[in-house]
């Protein structure tokens, strides 16, 4: 009997803002030159690390919570089709409308159609990674609709015509003096005597946004959770701008990645402990909004959910990589990452920076898309991200897995110095006698080191090493040879 493998039906790579357009090492080199950026990042990430450790350390069952979160998400991914259908049925039964979008273009076109149907040319927004990922604001703007970010940091980034550089703290790369300058330059009706005192900055943003909240007919949000067995959606936030957007306008459009589902309402018990402690380092976030369909006389009367795939099915099809979809966008991995701390978020190109971005972006788009193949190498594999992840995504293992995919994707072409070097090393290191023979050459390296017994310059790709480090002169004999002499072996 012969069988033809049919593969996964309908797989299509993600689109939108998921791409590194420049290789990570060169983008990082440029960002490293920005001393102000590095100071801002060092200060912000070390503050938030300490806060997170304090509130995760105080829970005696923190490790059990992580286990529970991981197990729940594993089960969600295994049952995704069934749970998505249950979610759709429950949202519909409670008066909402569910739309399915395969990629960024489809999602944007659905959202634009819904906004146009309301006859408005401006919307207010709750901070959302999904809408960043699909480039929704830019799409709406091109089609004559203004989308106003209402989260303070997103507002800063939007006013500055900049890109977010962190998934929780989008303006982490700006300090307060820079924020004041942006407000003075870009915010209409701003007090010209505005100082960089945080409270004054927040009050200025508040006054600016209040008018938008009170006049907007349509709001667009993301979702932290979607509950399959009730059709309930949830957004957690700190500023109350989300609550305003979710309750005041007549129409609410929520864009949610298909991996955001939880099976039951009771599962929130686990995630509402994991998320705030891991992200802002708080025991509980100030505002948690939950809503189910529409309720007459209370909140929006018109409710839509756009379920977004955009490469998530691609990631799901990768057995080694699929647990990246467990991510709840807390940013704990980003805050502990030494590479992110130095390179900053923009070096990753994609909406998703840091360790999680280095796996999520290539998993969603395919490792061969643009320069996304360079992202899995943006890590020293120190493992701090895995330790911090509230749903225990083994980011280092997935990074290594994706490096394997990248190497395999380039096999058969012109070999690089790395290819040649590692193939030769594989030959020498897969046999004790061969390695022993190579080690007989150690005195040559010793001679090359010269009088001060330091090698200061190496050619080719190894020049990266000697840009900041010496190599000591090798010993006159290997341990292997010493042992053989000591034990009178040949």
């Amino acid at each position, binding site marked *: 009997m012969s069988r033809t493998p049919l593969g996964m039906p309908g797989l299509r790579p993600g689109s939108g803002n998921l791409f590194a357009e420049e290789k990570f090492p060169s983008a990082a080199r440029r960002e490293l030159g920005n001393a102000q950026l590095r100071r801002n990042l060092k200060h912000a990430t070390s503050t938030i690390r300490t806060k997170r450790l304090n509130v995760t350390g105080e829970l005696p069952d923190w490790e059990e919570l992580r286990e529970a979160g991981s197990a729940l998400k594993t089960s969600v991914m295994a049952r995704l089709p069934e749970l998505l259908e249950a979610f759709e049925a429950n949202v519909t039964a409670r008066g909402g409308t569910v739309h399915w979008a395969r990629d960024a273009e489809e999602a944007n076109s659905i959202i634009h159609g819904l906004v146009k149907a309301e006859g408005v040319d401006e919307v207010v927004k709750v901070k959302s990674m999904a809408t960043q990922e699909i480039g929704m604001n830019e799409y709406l703007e091109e089609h004559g609709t203004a989308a106003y970010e209402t989260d303070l940091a997103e507002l800063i980034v939007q006013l500055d015509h900049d890109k977010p550089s962190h998934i929780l703290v989008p303006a982490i790369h700006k300090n307060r003096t820079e924020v004041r300058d942006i407000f003075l330059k870009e915010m209409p009706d701003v007090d010209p005597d505005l100082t960089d005192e945080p409270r004054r900055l927040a009050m200025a943003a508040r006054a600016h946004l209040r008018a938008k909240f009170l006049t907007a007919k349509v709001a667009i949000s993301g979702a932290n959770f979607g509950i399959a067995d009730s059709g309930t959606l949830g957004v957690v936030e700190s500023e109350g701008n989300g609550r305003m957007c979710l309750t005041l306008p007549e129409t609410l459009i929520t864009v949610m990645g298909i991996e955001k589902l939880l099976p039951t309402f009771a599962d929130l018990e686990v995630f509402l402990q994991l998320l705030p402690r891991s992200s802002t380092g708080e025991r509980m976030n100030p505002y948690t909004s939950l809503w189910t369909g529409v309720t007459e006389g209370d909140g929006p009367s018109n409710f839509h959910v756009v379920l977004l795939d955009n490469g998530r099915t691609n990631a799901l099809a990768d057995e080694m990589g699929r647990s990246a979809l467990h991510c709840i966008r807390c940013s704990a991995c980003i805050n502990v990452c030494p590479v992110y701390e130095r390179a900053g978020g923009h070096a990753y190109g994609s909406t998703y920076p840091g360790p999680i971005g280095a796996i999520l972006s290539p998993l969603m788009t395919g490792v061969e898309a643009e320069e996304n193949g360079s992202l899995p190498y943006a890590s020293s594999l120190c493992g701090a991200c895995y330790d911090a992840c509230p749903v225990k995504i083994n980011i280092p293992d997935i990074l290594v897995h994706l490096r394997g995919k990248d190497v395999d994707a380039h096999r058969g072409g012109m070999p690089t110095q790395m290819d040649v070097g590692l193939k030769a090393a594989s030959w020498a290191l897969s046999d004790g006698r061969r390695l022993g023979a190579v080690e007989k050459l150690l005195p040559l390296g010793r001679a090359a080191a010269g009088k001060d017994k330091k090698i200061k310059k190496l050619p080719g790709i190894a020049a990266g090493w000697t840009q900041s*480090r010496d190599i*000591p002169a090798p010993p006159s004999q290997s*341990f292997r040879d010493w042992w053989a002499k000591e034990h009178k072996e040949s």
Partner: protein
Amino acid sequence: MKIALFATCIVDGMYPRAAQATVALLERLGHEVVFPKGQACCGQMHVNSGYFKEAVPVVANHVRAFESEDYDVAVAPSGSCVASVKHQHPMVARRAGHAGLEERATAVGKKTYELSELLVDVLGVTDPAIQLGSYFPHTVTYHPSCHGMRLLKLGDRQAGLLRGVKGLELVDLPEADQCCGFGGTFSVKNADVSSAMLADKTANIRSTGASVCAGGDYSCLMHIGGGLSRQDSGVATLHLAEILASTETEPAAVPGPAGQTVKVVVK
């Protein structure tokens, strides 16, 4: 106990002193050390660089070498290589579809210990000064390497052993848990970010005023030492095994920052 030494390729070829010191420590405790001749490397450079296909023969060689000898436990003076043997070897075999190799690699991994793990958990070393005669009259700071700390969960084992060395003054390293930026081929592929991480690590080491930075992995120590040498800092790097093996009658020579031996004046 019969203990098989896995020297690791970097110690074998570049820092044989660490393997010699490991042998000395184990023999001092009355154990027999064997060196399986076929051994070469754990293969993590290949795995971590994405060259899984090229890693398979390296892993297979390690498994073969450590199956060929009869011993109770194996030990390596490296957290990183032991983590590779334990965690990566079965994964590499599985990925290549070698179920047999996966099983054999798992069995070898189970018998393999990192040096401080073996000394503390298996051989019961609680007081190096008394049990090993450890003596090292220098101010030392200690960098806990990432893989020992996070993959093997070594905790306080290495620092605890250092504190028990006579004459040694251990000073805390600020931001000790931060990676030094080595990461194998990361230091070449992302040389700029790696150098920035190294600059912070060496600045922290120099801020302690210690004359030696100790660690349990010569890969990280080669990186850190390479930076300290380039900066002409005068701070040396030394492996935990060498410090523990140092005694009043045979004190360890403190190498210069790039690994060259400097004459030590014993007080």
